[in-house]
Every structure is written in C-alpha cells, then in structure tokens.
C-alpha cells in the first residue's frame, strides 16, 4: 500500500536541493542572488521533505512509505535505489527540520561573508550536504549508502575548511578528513562481511547488497564474524557520531566551520552515525549477545561524562557546544545500549521504550544543539570573537538572541518543561526498568549509568549557567561586546523556529510520540498504541506496572496557575514599596569594572580542582614585583588543559606512524628499476598466493 504522496514530495525535495546546488554555483558572482537561490533551494527542499516524512510517519505502518530509484544506474551492479522506511523517515525528518531553520537563518548570516567569501559555494555545499545526508538515511542498498556517505563526508570537509585562510581551520579539516576515512574503511569492511554472509555473492550482486537482504542477517552469521562486523560498525559509525575515544576530530572541526554549517554538522552529520548504528544493530545483526549492549551502554556513559567535563573547561563558545555534542551522543547511546540489552533478554517492550528514548533524544539534541550553534553564530557575528571571556552584557544588546539561547540552554540542561527533560526522563525510566529484567551483576550497570546520567545532567546545567551567564549577562568585557548589535531578523526567525520546536517537543511529547509507531512496529514489532503505558492521554507514562507518569504541559500550566500567589501577597504587603535602580555592591570601591567580574575560567575552577586527576591542568604564573611579593607589578597567568586521549593515545600513535613512514621512504627511492622490481615481486607473490 504505497501512497504516492511521500514519493512525490521527496523527489520534489531532491529537485529543490539540486536547484540550490546548481543555482548557488551559477550565481556565485552575485552574493545576494546566490543567497536567495541557494538557501531558498534548501528551504523549499527541507519543507517538502519534512512534509513527506511526517505523512510517512503519521501513517504508522511498518513498511516503507516510498521506494524508488533516484536515477537509472550507469554502472552494472549499482542501483541508486531509495526506500523511506519509518527509521529512515525519522532521521530524514531531523535533517529537513534543521534544513528549514538553518536556511532561514542563513539568509541573514551569510551577509557577513559578502564580498569576502564565495557565498554561492557555501550555499551549494550546504545543499549538497543536506541532499547527501537525506540519501544516506534513505539509501536502500549498501553501495548507494556508502556512495552517499562519502559525498556527505567530503562536503562536510569542504564546509569545515570553508574559512581555509586560517591555519587552525586547515588543520581541523585534515583531522576530520583522516578520521572520517578511517571510519569509512571500517564500514566498507563491515558491509563486505555482511555481503559475504548473504550467500548471494556469486549470483546477483545488486540485490545481495540490498538492505532488504541484510535484514536479520546476523542470525545466519557465525558468531565470530558477527562480532567482527559489530566492532567494525561500532568504530566506523562511532567515529562519525563522535563517541569517546574516537571523538578528537569533533571539537576541532565543528567550531571552525561557519555557524550555519556548524549547526548542520552537529545537528545532522553526527546523527548519521547514530542512524547507522541503529540500522545495523537493530535491523541487520539480529538478536544481540549481551556484551554488545554492555559495550554500547558503557561507551555511552563514558562519552556523556567526559564530554560534559571537557565542555566545562572550554571558554570558546563553539568548542564548548561541540563537546556537548559528544555528551549528548553518549546519552543517545545509553538508550540504544539499554535497548540492545533488553533485546538480548527477549523483552521487546522495554527494548522499544529504550530505543524510543534514544531516538527522542536524537531529535531533541538536533534541535537544541542547532539552536545553540545558531545563537553562537549570532554572537560571533556581533562580537567577532568566540572567546567567552571577551563577551558579557549581550542580553541588553541582543535580547532576542539571548532569549533563544536561554531556551536552548534550559533544554540541553534537561530541565523541565523543555524537550531535553522528556527524553532524559524516558532514558532514566528504561535504565531503571533494566534492573529488574536483565540478568546477573550486569544490571548494576543500569542504575550506575543512571547516576552518571544525573551527574552529566547537573554538570551540563553548570556548564550552561556558565555559557549563558558569562556570554550574555553582567557587563560587557570588551569593546566589541559593548558595541554589539542585534542580528538580522531572518536569523532570529531561524532561531525562533527551533525555539518553537523545543517547546513543542517538550510540552507535547505524547503528540509527537505517535510518530514512533511505525519505528516500533518495524524494529521490535511492538505497537506503542496498544501499550497504553507510554501514552496515557496527555501524560507520558513509563510502563504498565510502574505507574510513574509525567506531564510537562501539566507542570507548565499549574505553574502559570500558581503565579497569582506571589502577586496577591505583594498587592497586600508591598503597596508602599518602591523600586530603585542602584549600583551593584562594590565593597566601597569606586565602582565595579568588567575586569572584576567572574570569568568563565573562574567559574569552572572548582570543577577543575575536583576533577584534576582527569584534567591534569598545567598552569604557569609569572610575577614581577619591586619590594614585596604581595604587591605584584605585572602578573601573567596561563592555564592549559589537554585532553588525555590526545596526549596519551593519539600523539604517540601519530609519532609511531610518522616514524614508520619515514622508514618506508627508503623504498621509494625514485629509481625506476627498483619500482619495476617491486611490481615483479608483487606479481610473483600474488601468483603464488593464487596457486
């Protein structure tokens, strides 16, 4: 029962993206036209694809809502076939939502590049990345998937190195490129393993690579090969998702891109890793052994805690946000890991709950992280710095941006009544239920992960008090911050859309959860409509036997109803009281200056002290004084933190690889005769091997 509508809409969306790519490149000489055509294309494309996916998901069926070939293939064995099943549609929905908001934002944002950089190229790359990401989520065979995956990775590389005149950007781009390709290598190996096991290798190659044939293939694979495939996919998709310890590219690459691109990178690109893991683990590899779930849950917990701890140490606003992406990927993986463990014990209902928790957090993170990156972009455009120590007081100069950023900050800190709270609540519930329903001591892992999730949430709140408080509140700490002006209305509208999305996902979770019916049916066969536990009228429930319910809307409305309580009291008591504006208490000095304010570094100092075994901060203090050490003439303070993974793992690894390459250089002496001998020897060896 294939309705035509999603197919048509999706094709139209691809057309719009294509118009954005071609139009952006063709008109790139004229900035304004290129902006209108390029981001207009992505806006229309995003809208169309969003409608397509919502209709597909709302139908609530398990099967694909659309299946067609993008184009006739020119190569044998390669079919550019697409299939929009519920899981894919959910991720396409995320891309499309962000595409709409980011496009609107970009109309204003790219004005900062006019006359300086090629805006048409930026728009074309954005469109290409949106198109490639949509194709990744909708690809119906492994060949096409990898093709789209590579196009996406390369476009992302181009977006990261868009401001390539800075060396910081170039280095980040190369790091991203290298890590991304290590990941792709693992994926190719993983798919080859699956391909080998279909048993169709010699006959019909095109259909052997089709995802339909991979469905529950793991059941037929020998355990060793299945585990190998799991590890390969975990590494391959894990690099893209940014799990610890494969995350080192993320905090380098995301901040240096233009902010609209950062929003897409953090909101969408790393979600392709989550999509891949979900697709492979839940669709292809069959009933998982216990250690898979344990591994994923552990990696998720570690990523969440380390991500937020490193984020706290940052005072570069966009790097801080990038580290939070690692944290949130960790939270998503907690849900997925718990779900795998429930599948192992044969509890599809709980597995669905945990999976939905993970996926709900996926869309939530996409929405609020994009919102925060767009806010950071607005701040960057207004102050020309990413360093929080030079900001401050922006709430009076950029009130709308500040409000949007505050909503994002509350949402990402998992505070009620916004969306971060809803998905973390679901995650907590699934972790709690794990205690009673899984075997052995492993179940201790669930509540401990829950405790670590609590630590993560509280640290995230601390981090966003810092991010918002230091950036937007108090007095401006530098001249550019003092002279900042509110950004263009289109940018505010783009952020406003995401604010609305945060509110909707937070206040109406039961409405939104209806879209998950198809995913549940597709993956675990559980119909969440029949499980009244999850959706109890307007309440969000957890499980049949545990009557815990929550309603963010109810909380918000009751809060509003209680509002008159303080007001009535004031009418009674404070009739004669007046309000005066006065200076902040300055201990009798001659007024406060911005240099007396608390800094971002100072704010996170207690946490740096408490976790100093992890951070190993290095500090350098130079004092010059004349008479007494108490009256310093000049003081220079330097504090530096390097990630343990970089200094302990990646740098030695890098050195070893360079040393080996230097040794290998002897082989490449430039002598033609020597090369001919190499070829000859290789040929002989291969012949011997073949015999």
């Amino acid at each position, binding site marked *: 029962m294939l309705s035509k509508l999603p197919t048509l809409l999706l094709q139209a969306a691809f057309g719009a993206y294509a118009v954005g790519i071609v139009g952006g490149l063709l008109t790139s000489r004229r900035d304004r036209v290129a902006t209108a055509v390029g981001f207009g294309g992505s806006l229309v494309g995003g809208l169309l694809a969003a409608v397509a996916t919502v209709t597909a998901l709302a139908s609530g069926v398990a099967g694909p809502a659309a299946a067609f070939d993008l184009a006739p293939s020119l190569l044998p064995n390669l079919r550019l076939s697409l299939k929009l099943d519920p899981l894919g549609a959910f991720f396409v929905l995320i891309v499309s939502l962000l595409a709409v908001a980011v496009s609107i934002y970009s109309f204003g944002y790219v004005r900062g590049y006019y006359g300086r950089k090629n805006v048409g190229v930026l728009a074309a790359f954005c469109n290409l990345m949106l198109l490639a990401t949509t194709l990744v989520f909708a690809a119906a065979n492994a060949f096409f998937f990898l093709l789209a995956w590579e196009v996406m990775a390369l476009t992302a590389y181009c977006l990261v190195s868009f401001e390539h005149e800075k060396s910081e950007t170039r280095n980040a781009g190369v790091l991203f490129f290298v890590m991304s390709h290590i990941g792709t290598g693992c994926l190719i190996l993983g798919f080859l393993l699956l391909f080998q096991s279909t048993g169709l290798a010699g006959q019909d190659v095109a259909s052997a690579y089709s995802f339909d044939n991979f469905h529950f293939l793991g059941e037929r694979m020998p355990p060793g090969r299945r585990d190998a495939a799991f590890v390969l996919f975990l590494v391959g998709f894990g690099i893209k998702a940014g799990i610890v310890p494969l995350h080192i590219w993320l905090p380098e690459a995301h901040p240096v891109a233009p902010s609209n691109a950062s929003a897409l990178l953090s909101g969408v690109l790393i979600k392709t890793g989550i999509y891949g893991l979900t697709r492979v683990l839940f669709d292809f590899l069959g009933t998982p052994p216990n250690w898979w779930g344990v591994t994923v849950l552990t990696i998720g917990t570690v990523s969440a805690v380390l991500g937020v701890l490193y984020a706290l140490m940052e005072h570069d606003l966009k790097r801080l946000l990038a580290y939070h992406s690692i944290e949130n990927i960790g939270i998503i993986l907690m849900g997925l890991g718990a779900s795998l463990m429930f599948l192992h014990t044969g509890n599809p209902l709980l597995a669905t709950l945990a999976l939905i928790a993970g996926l709900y957090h996926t869309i939530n993170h996409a929405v609020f992280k994009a919102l925060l990156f767009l806010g950071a972009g607005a701040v960057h455009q207004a102050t020309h710095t990413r360093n929080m120590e030079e900001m401050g007081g922006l709430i009076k100069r950029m009130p709308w941006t500040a409000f949007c950023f505050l909503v994002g900050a509350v949402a990402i800190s998992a505070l009620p009544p916004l969306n971060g709270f809803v998905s973390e609540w679901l995650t907590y519930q699934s972790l709690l239920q794990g205690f009673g329903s899984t075997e052995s001591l492993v179940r201790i892992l669930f509540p401990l992960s829950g405790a670590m999730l609590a630590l993560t949430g509280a640290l995230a709140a601390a981090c966003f008090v810092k991010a918002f408080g230091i950036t937007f509140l108090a007095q401006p700490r530098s001249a550019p911050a003092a002279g900042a002006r509110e950004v263009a209305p289109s940018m505010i509208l783009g952020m406003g859309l995401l604010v609305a999305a945060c509110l909707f996902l937070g206040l109406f979770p039961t409405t939104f959860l209806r879209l998950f019916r198809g995913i549940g049916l597709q993956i675990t066969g559980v119909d969440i409509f029949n499980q009244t536990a999850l959706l109890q009228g307007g309440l969000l429930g957890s499980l049949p036997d545990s009557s815990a319910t929550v309603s963010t809307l109810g909380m918000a409305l*009751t809060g509003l109803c209680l509002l008159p309580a303080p007001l009535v009291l004031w009418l009674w008591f404070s009739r004669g009281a007046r309000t005066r504006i*006065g200076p902040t208490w300055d201990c009798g000095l001659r007024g406060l200056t911005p240099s007396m304010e608390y800094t971002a570094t100072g704010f996170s100092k207690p946490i740096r002290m408490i976790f100093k075994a992890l951070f190993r901060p290095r500090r350098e203090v130079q004092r010059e004084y004349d008479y007494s050490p108490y009256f310093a003439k000049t003081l220079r303070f330097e504090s530096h933190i390097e990630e343990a993974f970089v200094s302990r793992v990646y740098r030695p690894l890098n050195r070893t690889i360079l040393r080996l390459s230097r040794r290998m250089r002897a082989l490449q002496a430039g002598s033609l005769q020597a090369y001919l001998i190499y070829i000859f020897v290789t040929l002989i060896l291969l012949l011997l091997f073949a015999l």
Partner: protein
Amino acid sequence: MKAIAGVFFQTLLLLLLAPLLSGCIRNWKAKLQNRRGPRVWQPYLDLAKFMRKDMVISEHASWVFHAMPYVLFLSTLLAGLMMPLITAAAPLRLFGDALAFIGLLALGRFFLALGGLDPASAFGGMGSSREMTLAAIAEPALLLAIFTVAITSGSTDFSQMLGAAQTPAWRLLNPAHLLAFSALFIVLLAETGRIPVDNPATHLELTMIHEAMLLEYSGRYLALIEWSASIKQLVLMALLVNIFFPVGIAVGLEPAALGWSMACFLGKLLLLAGAVVLVETTNAKMRLFRVPDLLSAAFVLAALALLSTFLFH
C-alpha cells in the same frame, strides 16, 4: 474538583509550614549554643518585613534578574506539590514523579545561579559557580538513593515508593533503606546549605555559597527567594521522612486520618530537624574542597545501598 482542592491545600501547607520549620531549626540551634535565639515564628515576620521594603535593583541587571524569583518560587512550589506530605498520593502526582521533582529543583537552581551572575558582582559569580559545582556532585548520590528505593517499588512515582515501603515486606532495618537514607541525609545537608557544607547564618564573603548569589536581591524578591529556600528545605525533609518512614500517612481523605497523618508528619519533621540541628552544632564548616569528599561518601553509601538491594532481592 478534589484535585484542585488538593493542590490548593498542599500549596497552603507548603507556604505556611516552611517558615515555621526554618524558625524551629534556628531557635533550637541557638538553644543548643546557650543563646536565647529568635522566636520560632521570626521567619514569618522576616518575610513580611522584606515584602514591605523598597527594592534596589542593580543597574547591570537584565530581565533574568527579575524573572529569577518567580521561576525559583514556582518551580519549588511545583516540586513540593509532587511530594506526598500528609496524603499518600501527592496532588500533582500524575504530572510528575521523583525525576520531575529533581528536575524542577534543578530548574530553580539554574535560574538562581543566573540571577547571581546577572548583577556583574564577583560575589554572585562565586556563589553561582560553587552552587552549581556542589549540586553537580550531589546529584548522582541523590538520584542513586532514589533509584534504590524505586527499584524496590518498581516505579519512580513517589506514592508507589511510599506504598512499597508500607507493605509488610518492608522492614525498618532494611540495610538498603538505611544506607540510602544516610546518603540522602548528606545530600539534604548540601542541598539546603547547612553546616558542614554551607553556613546559612553567615555573610562572610569567602565562604558563603547560597547567600552570595542573593547579595543583590532585596525587598519582595528577597522574600520570595528566602521563602523558596525554606520550602525546598521542607520538601526535601519530607522526602526523607515520608519515603523512608511512611508511618501514619493518610491513604484516604477522612478528616480523622488526615489529622493523624498531619500530627505524624509534624512529629517526624521535628525529629529530623533535631538531627539537622545536632549535626550543625557539633560540626565545623568544611573547606569548600573538602565538601566533594563528603558528597562522594554519600555517593558510595547510595551505591552500597543499591548493591544491598541486589543482594537481598
């Protein structure tokens, strides 16, 4: 209709009882230190006085500064409405469970810390930084302890947890419950800013945490913040006494049962307040960087509680 009446009465109870509890603690503490101390109803008079006073707002403050007292007050009240005080089912039980309760308190704290940073004073920033740090370390212990109880009852709903504690299978000396209770007691000291974590009676710049964030607040805003702080103290203490010792709590709505429940609740609260007073009088305030040790001890206690649930399951 019944639900609305329940919300109304519990709101009233929270608003009226909270200052009295603070007053009792202050009075008893003074008595233990051989002082006469303020009368137990002094907090009410303080609140009324703050309400009548003029407000001085910092020139650097933004709307966040003005919004903070409302957000803090309302989120604390909402959290209080999710906690069973004298009836086994809290009035807002359907809208939120233990996790929502923790979340609402965190929401209030989030804005409290922002309010500290807003007037551009270094004291406020210092207080915010410390408050958020200590809260972050206390949170895992709090959640793990609540999880331990939730595991026994299979639900994070307070009323269910309370019901599970009332069943005959429950024993007062259940090691899991005792350990979780001790963990929560330490968290209570930290969350309500009591010695040895913070000293509510001092304004010494370098040691204060909670008070540092409020330095720029005055008049009716200060009244709201102080009131919220005492409501938070009341609900956290109610969490300890009602979830772990649900003696006498009313299941139905008969006046006699409610009256008995109220008497029991007051008695238990006063006992716990006595314990807090004893701890406050016999201990010295800790250095800030010793507090994490205390809180990690709470975490270890909660983890042990969890393990013992596992062993005795």
